[in-house]
């Protein structure tokens, strides 16, 4: 699945206009607890979160994630968006809740990653 597909499925808004929307996303993770996100290895992943602070981008950067989706209408600050853009991470915002957004991506074939290191 590409970032463009996620953008379309979640009727989301792209907050990093320079992002490469043809980037492939292989796995997904939905959480507001960053240490839980850090506990599992992911490959070319998207992070769905309702948490809104710079540590979301730091976490995604450490995990080599390619995309962050802010759910339930959360709007990250310009500093957060800028940090993500610097790291080459696409930032999307959707009005859907965490549960619905995860469900839509799962139904379209995207899967989580459940293996520890």
């Amino acid at each position, binding site marked *: 699945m590409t970032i463009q597909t996620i953008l379309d499925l979640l009727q989301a808004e792209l907050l990093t206009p320079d992002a490469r929307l043809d980037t492939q996303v292989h796995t997904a993770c939905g959480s507001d*607890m960053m*240490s839980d996100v*850090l*506990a599992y290895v992911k490959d070319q992943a998207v992070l769905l979160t309702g948490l809104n*602070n710079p*540590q979301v981008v730091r976490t995604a950067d*450490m995990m*080599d994630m390619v995309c962050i989706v802010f759910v339930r209408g959360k709007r990250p600050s310009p500093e957060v968006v800028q940090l993500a853009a610097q790291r080459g991470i696409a930032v999307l915002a959707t009005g859907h809740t965490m549960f619905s957004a995860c469900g839509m991506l799962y139904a379209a074939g995207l899967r989580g990653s459940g293996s520890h*290191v």
Partner: protein
Amino acid sequence: MSETIRLEYTVPGDDFARAGEASADLKHTLKRMGFPAEAIRKASIALYEGEINLAIHAHGGQIAVEVTPTAIQMRLTDQGPGIPDIDLAMQEGYSTASEQVRSLGFGAGMGLPNMKRYTDQFAIGSQVGVGTTIEMSVLL
């Protein structure tokens, strides 16, 4: 790489927004130098968890990194409150973090277990009222 690379960082206390800058710098410095991606990822995730701990539990601290031809070695020291029961602190899910820290996305009790999980060597020493030292390495 035959030379040892040394990097040092100071983590400010109680400045949550800046926590993670050292790990990001380590990650991107080692990436530029061409080290293996998986080793960089493991080291930077472990250091990031440590950095968050320094910021939220220890009022800041110091990080010293040495990259030798065989390992990425990281030493974190602080003069924080110390850990009374290290075995308990190493258990997944155990945390003493405040509600405020949890609302920021941390304090799930995964920090120390994640550091151990992502490194090949991990040692922690702590004295209540004196501080905590963590030494951990990822082998190259």
